[in-house]
């Protein structure tokens, strides 16, 4: 009886908990646009998954990871400013995904569900992916936390200190790709980076250390999921966007708290 809302709730909480520490790193390292690009490219992954009849979650994870590694390489070798490059890739991959999708008359796909998420359609299999992926992400982040933080502060200093800076960066973008892939069902392509960034930004004024900020971001994200789901039931609004609106409201509150405290 209760399971129809319990499953989506746990899925949302799992994604929010994972997004906390990863989103904090995204905020510190200014990777927000990077995450957006991965998310937009994810639609292309779905299209290819349908086209070749692959497991959709695997196709998503694979395409996001490949895109992440391509971006990492392009950033090093092209003379184009990286925000321009990301803008080009982000929107062209979204557009290619949409165009290719339109060629298949026989494939019926709920585009809205991919763009804005469909939390209530989460099944047990999705939940398993979210918790397995989430545990992997959090485990790896905790394991390499010092190195990740050191290279966030200064890549040069971290490299001189002997941290494997390049590997850490590659690991970070791959984890980002994984989280984008598993959280797409919750908030959709267009709102994934909101779930990464907004809770972390809301946590900033309340935190005194990086670890505090990462944990608070998880809590704020989880609170947004609960509030968003509750409001979407009461007012019959789309769940994904309502979660993002809740997170944004919490962000505003933390900013107000911060300016009042000063």
């Amino acid at each position, binding site marked *: 009886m209760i399971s129809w809302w319990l499953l989506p709730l746990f899925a949302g909480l799992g994604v929010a908990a994972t997004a906390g520490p990863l989103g904090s790193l995204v*905020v*510190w390292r200014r990777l927000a646009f990077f995450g957006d690009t991965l998310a937009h490219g994810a639609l292309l992954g779905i299209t290819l998954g349908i086209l070749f009849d692959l497991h959709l979650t695997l196709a998503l994870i694979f395409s996001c990871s490949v895109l992440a590694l391509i971006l990492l390489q392009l950033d090093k070798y092209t003379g184009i400013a990286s925000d321009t490059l990301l803008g080009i890739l982000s929107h062209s991959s979204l557009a290619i995904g949409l165009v290719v999708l339109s060629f298949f008359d026989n494939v019926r796909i709920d585009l809205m569900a991919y763009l804005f998420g469909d939390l209530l359609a989460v099944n047990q299999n999705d939940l398993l992916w979210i918790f397995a992926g989430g545990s992997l992400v959090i485990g790896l982040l905790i394991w390499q936390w*010092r190195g990740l*933080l*050191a290279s*966030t*502060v*200064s890549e*040069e*200093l971290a*490299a*001189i*200190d*002997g*941290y494997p800076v390049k590997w850490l960066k590659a690991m970070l973008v791959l984890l980002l790709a994984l989280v984008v892939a598993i959280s797409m069902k919750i908030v959709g392509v267009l709102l994934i980076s909101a779930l990464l960034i907004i809770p972390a*930004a809301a946590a*900033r004024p309340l*935190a*005194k*250390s*990086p670890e*505090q*900020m990462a944990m608070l971001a998880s809590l704020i994200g989880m609170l947004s999921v609960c509030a968003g789901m509750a409001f979407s039931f009461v007012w019959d609004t789309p769940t994904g966007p309502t979660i993002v609106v809740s997170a944004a409201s919490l962000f505003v509150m933390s900013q107000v708290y911060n300016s009042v405290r000063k």
Partner: protein
Amino acid sequence: MNPELVVVKAEAETLIRAQGINQTWGDRHVLQNIDLAICENEIVTIIGPNGCGKSSLLRILLGLHTADSGKITRRKGLRVGYMPQKLRIDDRLPLSVTGFLMLAPGARKERVQEWLERLSINALAKQPVQRLSGGEWQRVLLARALLIEPHLLVLDEPVQGVDIQGQRELYQLLPELRNELGCGIVLVSHDLHLVMAQTDRVICLNGHVCCSGHPDQVSVSEEYNSLFGNQHGHQHLAPALSNELAPELAHYTHHHDHTHCADGHIEGSTECQEQERKHD
């Protein structure tokens, strides 16, 4: 000669050696055939005007960049402590001084506390790194470099933006650290004339190694002050202050056998401009 001294000299190991380093950025040949070795217990000051290749050489020595040609040999297991000239930490990262120092590999709370006390910055331990003054931040950066117990300590423009008192304290501290840790120290400076007195070797860089040698002791006489205080752009060293600073500073006399044209290429064999001015 003191036989003990000979033994010590013979045992001093080379920490890092650069051989035949060449580096070109676009059509500028910024480093030409650089040979350089730094030993244990040795303090080396690299000086040169802006754009002389100091930063490129430093990045190559630190292993951040691979030169177009040439070879870098490091002693096995060499630990390098690096104090950057500038490091800005984004406001979005909530980080205290202790938190920052704990990021050094293998850092422990007790060691962090020890260095904070040694550098008299223990009052800052809980401060957010973004709120420190330039001088305070520089000490924190030095503490970070020392925390890894370096064999080689590299300081990029360590006294830039630091007041005279701070500069003096640093120049007193560095030789002490050298004696305690037995580490080699490399200082990079754009000041072509005044270097730290305990410097064993000054290397003047301008694309290639122009000259190198031991700095002279700063004379504390009025004559010195009137000569260098005005001629070399050190007007801020009023005679009284210069006297006070003298034990930590030394003057480096260049021995160039060539001069550089505006584009950096070598013009022929004439005495260094500084020399000429000095003898005027």
